[in-house]
Protein backbone atom coordinates (compact mmCIF):
# COMPACT_ATOMS: atom_id res chain seq x y z
CA UNK A 1 0.00 0.00 0.00
CA UNK A 2 1.40 3.37 -0.98
CA UNK A 3 1.56 5.86 1.86
CA UNK A 4 1.22 9.55 1.07
CA UNK A 5 2.38 12.43 3.21
CA UNK A 6 2.16 16.19 2.80
CA UNK A 7 3.68 19.04 4.80
CA UNK A 8 4.45 22.67 4.12
CA UNK A 9 6.98 25.30 5.18
CA UNK A 10 7.25 29.02 4.67
CA UNK A 11 10.77 30.12 3.77
CA UNK A 12 11.58 33.10 5.95
CA UNK A 13 12.76 36.34 4.37
CA UNK A 14 16.23 35.92 5.93
CA UNK A 15 16.56 32.14 5.65
CA UNK A 16 19.37 32.19 3.03
CA UNK A 17 21.41 34.28 5.49
CA UNK A 18 20.64 31.99 8.43
CA UNK A 19 21.44 28.90 6.37
CA UNK A 20 24.66 30.53 5.12
CA UNK A 21 25.70 31.10 8.72
CA UNK A 22 24.91 27.54 9.74
CA UNK A 23 26.42 25.89 6.67
CA UNK A 24 29.26 28.29 5.75
CA UNK A 25 27.85 28.37 2.21
CA UNK A 26 28.44 32.05 1.56
CA UNK A 27 28.15 31.89 -2.22
CA UNK A 28 27.07 35.45 -3.05
CA UNK A 29 23.99 34.33 -5.03
CA UNK A 30 22.48 33.50 -1.61
CA UNK A 31 23.29 36.72 0.22
CA UNK A 32 23.80 39.60 -2.24
CA UNK A 33 20.77 40.85 -4.25
CA UNK A 34 22.79 42.86 -6.82
CA UNK A 35 25.24 40.04 -7.39
CA UNK A 36 22.41 37.51 -7.82
CA UNK A 37 20.59 39.76 -10.32
CA UNK A 38 23.80 40.50 -12.22
CA UNK A 39 24.21 36.75 -12.63
CA UNK A 40 20.81 36.17 -14.19
CA UNK A 41 18.75 35.29 -11.11
CA UNK A 42 15.54 37.02 -9.94
CA UNK A 43 17.25 37.88 -6.64
CA UNK A 44 18.96 35.96 -3.87
CA UNK A 45 17.96 32.31 -3.85
CA UNK A 46 17.88 29.73 -1.09
CA UNK A 47 20.72 27.22 -0.97
CA UNK A 48 19.62 24.00 -2.69
CA UNK A 49 21.11 22.09 0.23
CA UNK A 50 18.66 23.88 2.52
CA UNK A 51 15.68 22.77 0.41
CA UNK A 52 17.15 19.27 0.50
CA UNK A 53 17.54 19.44 4.30
CA UNK A 54 13.89 20.50 4.62
CA UNK A 55 12.94 17.59 2.37
CA UNK A 56 14.84 15.16 4.63
CA UNK A 57 13.10 16.72 7.64
CA UNK A 58 9.72 16.05 5.96
CA UNK A 59 10.76 12.42 5.34
CA UNK A 60 12.21 11.69 8.80
CA UNK A 61 9.37 13.47 10.57
CA UNK A 62 10.73 13.32 14.16
CA UNK A 63 11.69 9.66 13.76
CA UNK A 64 15.16 8.15 14.09
CA UNK A 65 17.36 9.87 11.48
CA UNK A 66 19.29 6.62 10.88
CA UNK A 67 16.25 5.27 9.01
CA UNK A 68 17.10 7.56 6.07
CA UNK A 69 19.50 5.44 3.99
CA UNK A 70 19.77 7.54 0.85
CA UNK A 71 18.38 10.62 -0.82
CA UNK A 72 18.79 11.84 -4.37
CA UNK A 73 17.31 15.12 -5.50
CA UNK A 74 17.23 17.31 -8.56
CA UNK A 75 16.89 21.06 -8.06
CA UNK A 76 14.40 22.24 -10.69
CA UNK A 77 13.75 25.91 -9.94
CA UNK A 78 15.19 28.45 -7.53
CA UNK A 79 13.54 28.83 -4.12
CA UNK A 80 13.11 32.46 -3.14
CA UNK A 81 12.77 34.02 0.30
CA UNK A 82 9.13 34.11 1.45
CA UNK A 83 8.14 31.21 -0.85
CA UNK A 84 5.75 28.71 0.65
CA UNK A 85 6.89 25.17 -0.11
CA UNK A 86 4.65 22.12 -0.21
CA UNK A 87 6.31 18.72 0.28
CA UNK A 88 4.53 15.65 -1.12
CA UNK A 89 5.94 12.17 -0.72
CA UNK A 90 4.68 8.71 -1.59
CA UNK A 91 6.22 5.66 0.09
CA UNK A 92 6.07 2.18 -1.39
CA UNK A 93 7.77 0.11 1.28
CA UNK A 94 11.28 1.57 1.72
CA UNK A 95 11.19 3.49 -1.57
CA UNK A 96 9.93 7.04 -1.38
CA UNK A 97 9.44 9.57 -4.13
CA UNK A 98 9.12 13.22 -3.23
CA UNK A 99 8.16 16.44 -5.00
CA UNK A 100 8.44 19.95 -3.59
CA UNK A 101 6.37 22.74 -5.13
CA UNK A 102 6.07 26.43 -4.44
CA UNK A 103 2.73 28.12 -3.95
CA UNK A 104 2.39 28.88 -7.67
CA UNK A 105 2.57 25.16 -8.36
CA UNK A 106 6.10 25.34 -9.77
CA UNK A 107 8.21 22.33 -8.94
CA UNK A 108 11.43 23.27 -7.14
CA UNK A 109 12.71 19.79 -6.28
CA UNK A 110 12.01 16.21 -7.14
CA UNK A 111 13.74 13.22 -5.69
CA UNK A 112 13.89 9.71 -4.37
CA UNK A 113 14.84 8.37 -0.98
CA UNK A 114 15.20 5.07 0.82
CA UNK A 115 13.98 4.67 4.38
CA UNK A 116 14.46 1.43 6.22
Amino acid sequence: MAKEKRSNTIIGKYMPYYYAGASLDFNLIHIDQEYAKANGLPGIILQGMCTMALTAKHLIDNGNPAQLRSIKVRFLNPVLPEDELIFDSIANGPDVSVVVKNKNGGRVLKGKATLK
Partner: protein
Amino acid sequence: MLGDNIIGRKYESDYEVSYEKVKEYVRVLDDQNPHYTDREFVKSLDGGHPYAPPTFAAIYCQRAMNHLYFDPEFSKLVPRLVHGEQEYHFHEPVRAGDKIHTIAVIDNNYTKTNQAGKVHRIFEIRTTSSNQDGQTVCTGLYTLVIRGE
Protein backbone atom coordinates in the same frame (compact mmCIF):
# COMPACT_ATOMS: atom_id res chain seq x y z
CA MET B 1 38.76 26.85 -20.34
CA LEU B 2 39.20 24.17 -17.79
CA GLY B 3 40.47 21.04 -19.46
CA ASP B 4 39.93 17.38 -18.76
CA ASN B 5 43.06 17.48 -16.61
CA ILE B 6 40.80 18.59 -13.76
CA ILE B 7 39.30 15.08 -13.59
CA GLY B 8 40.65 13.27 -10.58
CA ARG B 9 41.55 16.45 -8.72
CA LYS B 10 41.07 15.81 -5.01
CA TYR B 11 40.20 18.02 -2.03
CA GLU B 12 40.19 16.91 1.60
CA SER B 13 38.99 18.28 4.91
CA ASP B 14 38.45 17.38 8.54
CA TYR B 15 35.42 18.35 10.55
CA GLU B 16 34.55 17.74 14.20
CA VAL B 17 30.80 17.56 14.77
CA SER B 18 29.72 19.52 17.83
CA TYR B 19 26.37 19.31 19.61
CA GLU B 20 26.10 23.12 19.63
CA LYS B 21 26.61 23.29 15.86
CA VAL B 22 23.98 20.61 15.29
CA LYS B 23 21.56 22.59 17.44
CA GLU B 24 22.28 25.78 15.45
CA TYR B 25 21.75 23.92 12.19
CA VAL B 26 18.39 22.36 13.16
CA ARG B 27 17.19 25.69 14.57
CA VAL B 28 17.58 27.21 11.09
CA LEU B 29 15.44 24.36 9.70
CA ASP B 30 12.97 24.62 12.59
CA ASP B 31 13.52 20.88 13.07
CA GLN B 32 12.52 19.84 16.57
CA ASN B 33 13.40 16.15 16.26
CA PRO B 34 14.63 15.14 19.76
CA HIS B 35 17.31 12.86 18.25
CA TYR B 36 19.26 16.04 17.45
CA THR B 37 18.50 18.29 20.38
CA ASP B 38 17.65 16.24 23.47
CA ARG B 39 20.79 14.76 25.00
CA GLU B 40 18.90 12.90 27.75
CA PHE B 41 16.39 11.41 25.31
CA VAL B 42 19.15 10.00 23.11
CA LYS B 43 21.10 8.72 26.11
CA SER B 44 18.03 6.83 27.32
CA LEU B 45 17.47 5.55 23.77
CA ASP B 46 20.86 3.98 23.07
CA GLY B 47 23.38 5.48 25.49
CA GLY B 48 25.06 7.54 22.77
CA HIS B 49 25.51 11.20 21.90
CA PRO B 50 22.88 13.21 20.01
CA TYR B 51 22.59 12.50 16.27
CA ALA B 52 23.39 14.90 13.47
CA PRO B 53 20.69 15.10 10.79
CA PRO B 54 21.68 13.07 7.71
CA THR B 55 21.83 16.23 5.58
CA PHE B 56 24.42 17.63 8.01
CA ALA B 57 26.65 15.93 5.42
CA ALA B 58 26.41 19.24 3.54
CA ILE B 59 28.19 20.87 6.49
CA TYR B 60 31.02 18.41 7.05
CA CYS B 61 31.62 18.17 3.27
CA GLN B 62 31.51 21.95 2.82
CA ARG B 63 35.17 22.59 3.62
CA ALA B 64 36.36 20.09 1.04
CA MET B 65 33.90 21.64 -1.45
CA ASN B 66 35.18 25.12 -0.56
CA HIS B 67 38.68 23.98 -1.55
CA LEU B 68 37.18 23.24 -4.96
CA TYR B 69 35.29 26.56 -5.17
CA PHE B 70 38.47 28.45 -4.31
CA ASP B 71 40.65 26.42 -6.67
CA PRO B 72 42.13 29.21 -8.85
CA GLU B 73 40.99 27.45 -12.03
CA PHE B 74 37.50 26.62 -10.80
CA SER B 75 36.72 29.85 -8.91
CA LYS B 76 36.20 31.76 -12.19
CA LEU B 77 33.19 29.51 -12.88
CA VAL B 78 31.53 29.99 -9.50
CA PRO B 79 29.42 33.09 -10.42
CA ARG B 80 27.53 30.95 -12.95
CA LEU B 81 27.40 27.85 -10.79
CA VAL B 82 24.12 26.31 -9.69
CA HIS B 83 23.59 23.08 -7.82
CA GLY B 84 21.82 20.73 -10.25
CA GLU B 85 21.52 17.47 -8.38
CA GLN B 86 22.61 15.99 -5.09
CA GLU B 87 22.80 12.41 -3.93
CA TYR B 88 23.80 11.05 -0.53
CA HIS B 89 24.06 7.51 0.75
CA PHE B 90 24.20 7.22 4.53
CA HIS B 91 26.04 4.47 6.32
CA GLU B 92 27.16 4.73 9.97
CA PRO B 93 25.09 7.52 11.64
CA VAL B 94 26.96 10.72 12.54
CA ARG B 95 26.72 11.89 16.14
CA ALA B 96 27.96 14.82 18.18
CA GLY B 97 31.67 14.40 18.94
CA ASP B 98 32.46 12.49 15.74
CA LYS B 99 35.52 13.49 13.71
CA ILE B 100 34.74 13.30 10.02
CA HIS B 101 37.30 13.16 7.23
CA THR B 102 36.01 13.96 3.75
CA ILE B 103 37.62 13.40 0.37
CA ALA B 104 36.03 15.13 -2.63
CA VAL B 105 37.12 14.06 -6.11
CA ILE B 106 36.18 15.62 -9.44
CA ASP B 107 34.79 12.56 -11.15
CA ASN B 108 33.28 13.78 -14.38
CA ASN B 109 33.08 16.91 -16.54
CA TYR B 110 30.90 17.25 -19.65
CA THR B 111 28.69 19.71 -21.53
CA LYS B 112 24.96 19.62 -22.08
CA THR B 113 22.89 21.79 -24.43
CA ASN B 114 19.49 22.86 -23.13
CA GLN B 115 16.31 23.53 -25.14
CA ALA B 116 17.23 27.20 -25.57
CA GLY B 117 20.55 26.14 -27.12
CA LYS B 118 22.68 27.21 -24.18
CA VAL B 119 25.66 25.01 -23.46
CA HIS B 120 25.96 24.15 -19.79
CA ARG B 121 29.08 22.67 -18.28
CA ILE B 122 28.47 19.90 -15.75
CA PHE B 123 30.88 18.81 -13.03
CA GLU B 124 30.29 15.71 -10.93
CA ILE B 125 32.04 15.60 -7.57
CA ARG B 126 32.14 12.43 -5.49
CA THR B 127 32.57 12.73 -1.73
CA THR B 128 33.48 10.02 0.72
CA SER B 129 33.27 10.80 4.43
CA SER B 130 34.48 8.56 7.23
CA ASN B 131 34.54 8.84 11.01
CA GLN B 132 37.29 8.54 13.63
CA ASP B 133 36.89 4.74 13.63
CA GLY B 134 37.44 4.54 9.88
CA GLN B 135 33.79 3.70 9.20
CA THR B 136 32.21 5.26 6.14
CA VAL B 137 29.43 7.61 7.22
CA CYS B 138 28.36 9.06 3.90
CA THR B 139 29.09 8.98 0.20
CA GLY B 140 27.82 11.79 -1.98
CA LEU B 141 27.54 12.87 -5.58
CA TYR B 142 27.34 16.61 -6.26
CA THR B 143 26.20 17.61 -9.75
CA LEU B 144 27.26 21.21 -10.33
CA VAL B 145 26.06 23.12 -13.36
CA ILE B 146 27.94 26.05 -14.86
CA ARG B 147 25.17 27.90 -16.71
CA GLY B 148 25.95 28.79 -20.32
CA GLU B 149 26.23 32.49 -21.21
